[in-house]
């Protein structure tokens, strides 16, 4: 019998498959038993009510998608009242994703969602920091460190920092998040992108730009997961373009301890249970006792990260 369980810090998940924030909700219970999953991760909420972005909010780009949903939010009150209780019926740990426009607002929300029924808090630091030219906290190591310190003081729950691919400093940001108090890194959020309808000459998204997700993002997110696993000493949760068990293996081998599945669920809403079953079968057939035995087993010849990056630049 294959052991699929993994540990993310103090939290044990029965398997390494969980949904990515914003691509999952209570509604998926219509399609399969949500307790199949290793954890539940909710859509990012903000403290107050937010409308979200103008439509269209999604479009397709070759074999992947862009979105600019814009975090519509009913606010923390409604979330605590309605959403958290829904997940009480399930055994899988509940991970709540939050974000804020300033570090203080962010921290306030972090302490507000530190309630019974919440097992970990995913802090979406890929969201913009309006105190620093509107760039996402996780674009720079310094703003990452500052916000993580404030968030750390706001809760005793495990803190998962969700990083952005819109940076040239992934290893530094990963280390800053760890030093600031993160218990795990979620790698990564969507990559800023754009598409234009050449007939109308309008951007395909109501909001002009949006985040790229799906298969196109995978090699980028995988590189980041690898960089983060090398740079930091806390567990890495891979995320980006994962659509099958083979992709999961790729992230585990690269150094991720678990993964999140996002866009693939839109294409095939039963993909997460399928992946779990495939993963189990695959490990069984290869005689691997535990999914943990795979983590970080990439044969990379101890290459020096700096050199690799240099030689890689085209």
């Amino acid at each position: 019998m294959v052991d699929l369980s993994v540990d993310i810090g103090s939290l044990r998940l029965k398997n390494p498959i969980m949904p990515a924030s914003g691509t999952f909700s209570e509604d998926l219970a219509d399609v399969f038993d949500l307790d199949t999953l290793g954890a539940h991760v909710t859509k990012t909420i903000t403290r107050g009510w937010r409308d979200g972005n103008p439509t269209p909010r999604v479009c397709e780009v070759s074999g992947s998608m862009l979105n600019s949903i814009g975090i519509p939010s009913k606010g923390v009150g409604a979330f605590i009242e309605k959403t958290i209780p829904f997940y009480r019926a399930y055994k899988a740990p509940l991970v709540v994703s939050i974000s804020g426009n300033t570090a203080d607002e962010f921290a306030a929300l972090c302490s507000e969602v530190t309630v019974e029924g919440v097992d970990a808090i995913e802090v979406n630091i890929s969201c913009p920091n309006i105190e620093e030219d509107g760039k996402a906290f996780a674009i720079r190591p310094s703003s990452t460190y500052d916000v993580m310190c404030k968030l750390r003081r706001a809760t005793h729950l495990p803190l998962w920092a969700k990083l952005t691919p819109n940076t040239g400093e992934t290893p530094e940001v990963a280390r800053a998040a760890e030093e600031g108090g993160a218990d795990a890194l979620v790698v990564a959020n969507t990559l800023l992108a754009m598409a234009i309808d050449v007939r109308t000459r309008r951007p395909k998204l109501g909001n002009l730009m949006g985040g790229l997700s799906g298969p196109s993002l995978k090699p980028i997110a995988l590189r980041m997961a690898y960089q983060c696993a090398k740079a930091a000493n806390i567990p890495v949760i891979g995320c980006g373009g994962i659509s099958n068990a083979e992709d999961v293996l790729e992230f585990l081998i690269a150094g991720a301890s678990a993964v999140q599945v996002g866009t693939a669920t839109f294409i095939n809403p039963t993909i997460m249970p399928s992946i779990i079953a495939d993963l189990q079968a695959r490990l069984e057939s290869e005689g691997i006792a535990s999914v943990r035995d795979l983590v970080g087993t990439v044969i990379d010849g101890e290459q020096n990260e700096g050199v690799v990056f240099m030689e890689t630049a085209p």
Partner: protein
Amino acid sequence: MALHATTAAAISPANAPAVFERDLEVLSNEPVNGEYMRLVLRAPAALLQQCRAGQFFHLLCPVVGGERPYLRRPMSIYGFYPEREELHFLYKVTGEGTRALFHLGPDDRLNVLGPLGQGFSIEDDWNHLVLVARGVGLATLAPLALEAKRLGRKLTAICSARSPDVLMSIDYFRDLGADIVTVTDAENTAGVDNLERIIEELIADKGVDAFYTCGSNRLLRLLQNLGERHDIPGEIALEQQMACGLGMCHCCVRPFRKDGRQVNLRVCREGPVFDMQEAMPW
């Protein structure tokens, strides 16, 4: 396709899903007139019994003939026949996804997700239903006739088109015992004023208990006015770009007036059928 193989096993019977994700067999896929195609799938009765008029399926269009659609495509249920194990769609070839659908033929399979969303409601005391449909909107409204017939209600279908030869589904409605009014641009009968006259006459002659329409701003405004004037409720089916189709991603929202406030509702979850007076012209 291998990806779907383990799905059934993963879903425990105790939590039987309300929504199916299934590969269905294509029975036929044929042109209805120059612009529309009818796709007929074989579906299990259990699935078809859950279908309601106004609901939709989210179709995983195949990668075929140079077309590489990625996201699913929403399509209204055009017909559902548990007794024949048939699920029908009526679609217009517009872009990559529907061009891919066009390639399907008998023996192919199509992965569908559904039935999804809220269908039309027919209250117990609504005896005379009037639907006003144009173009592909017929695909969405047609099964209402099916439901009306099942419930023994009277239905008048006002069908609008560019010209008489592209009028669709007339036989569909006739077979279900609906009264049919046809209007066309070519005959200069499809204008709002003429429609208003026709509907006012219907109200005066036979009484109308509910309006149903979909998709057009012009029709929405007309029916909202008529509804308000005569205190007749109504419903409208709306469209929006979708990703998940299940209510998770919040990409498919539209604004509605509710209790004096403007709120965003998800077309895939709170819709695609909405209260006509709450809908906002766009």
